[in-house]
């Protein structure tokens, strides 16, 4: 069965992540510009007396549908590409996919 891998990563690491995925032969993906915060609750900056909280920081949400057997490889590749060692490196979740249909193929079936 296929899985939907969703990764929340830093925008500036997208190219690295894409590179790592290409190395393992994974090309298809969907990219969404999102804002997010992790368990750090946002960053509070106060270097000028009055604090400002920056709690939603631009992130990239990456969605990749892959066959189950590829999931671990994909996770590893994303991790290699997205890692910096600082808070905010992100998170990867995997969801079950019940059907995965290519529109062009399905259309042919429909119209036949």
């Amino acid at each position, binding site marked *: 069965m296929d899985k939907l891998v969703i990764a929340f990563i830093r925008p*500036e690491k997208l190219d690295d992540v894409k590179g790592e995925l290409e190395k393992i032969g994974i090309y298809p993906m969907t990219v969404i510009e999102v804002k997010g915060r992790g368990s750090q609750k946002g*960053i509070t*900056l106060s*270097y000028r007396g009055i604090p*400002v909280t*920056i709690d939603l*920081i*631009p992130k990239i949400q990456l969605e990749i549908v892959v066959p189950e057997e590829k999931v671990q490889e994909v996770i590893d590749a994303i991790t290699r590409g997205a890692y910096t060692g600082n808070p905010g490196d992100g998170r990867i979740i995997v969801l079950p996919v019940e059907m995965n249909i290519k529109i062009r193929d399905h259309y042919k079936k429909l119209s036949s």
Partner: protein
Amino acid sequence: MATVNPGDTAWLLSASSMVLFMSIPGLALFYGGLVRSRNVLSTMYHVLSAFAIAVIAWVILGFSIAFGSNIAGFIGNPFQFLGLLPSEIPKIWPGTSVPTLIYVGFQGMFAAIATAIIASAIAERGKAEAWMLFSLLWVLLVYSVIAHWVWGGGWLSSLHALDFAGGMVVHISSGFSALVLSFIIGRRKFIKTVEAIPHNIPLILIGTGILWFGWLGFNAGSAVAANLDAANAWLVTTVAAASGALAWAFMTKRETGRPSTVAYASGAVAGLVAITPAAGYVDVIGSIIIGAIAGILSYCMVNFRIRKGWDETLDAWAVHGMSGVWGSIATGLFADPAVAKAAGLFFGNPYQLVPQIVGTIASIVYAMVMTYIIAKFVDAVVGWRVPEEVEKVGLDLPELGEEAYNM
């Protein structure tokens, strides 16, 4: 007694307004479009705040330093026109037929944009407070002094250095100051390349259009009259910009297979910079060549700086500084005696190159040394850099409490 000439005054009123427009919002947009979206406001604020500070400093003190009566060839009497009290200034500026106050205004717009150009060096990492203090010191201690040398009766004007509208005074001084400042403040962290990443190219192009438009006031206004010189300056400025734009676009195409709008914009600015010192002296053919070489030169200088890893982020040095140098030298080459009284090398007068080169070097050295001193002082007093966390999330929110876009 001299009287005000309404035609000349009309032109100077328009031209001064156009030069103001170059900074607010022209340069602010040009720079703002070039940075990432989380730094656009802080970058624009650098330009806006420098402009306002320079204007106030200029009317109180700067104009006197630049245009007060000459002290040892080096500066003007700083107390002569202090605060521009109506009783203490001539109604009409000597040697012109325009009111003193519009002459002050016109010259003040030059001081302000020169200062603002330097913001290139601190984009995406400089503290607003440090920058504002720097602006104040720079416009008084660097700009006003060099303006005195060249236009206020100082030693470079005695050498007959030609600088029609500010190749040395405005562009060399600001461009090389930016280079020094970029080294003092240091590179941005968390970037992969020292190239700017433009977040909004239409903003850059609006800025470019406003700069080009305003530059016609900048250069043709420098005739301080609506006369033949102004007309010459107007036309060669337009032509050199077009030529520079095409040249840079062509270079980009040569290297990458495609031209680009940012290439066009950068080339136009390079052409405008280079024609600035020359605008009252060269003919149309000269301006095509000057503009094209400026586009090519600054294109190479940008690439050079990036290869070197210098983070003079928005290329004040490569574009204003280096095309300013080229234009100042080129004035000594292409000055056509059929345009104005001056002749350059290609019109049989190799001697004009001497003051051009001396003036260029003097401006570079003085601007770099003084900027070093001022920037170090500001570093000690205020500190130049925002905290690392701020640089990471972008300066707009922490420095200004604002986000540019809230769709």
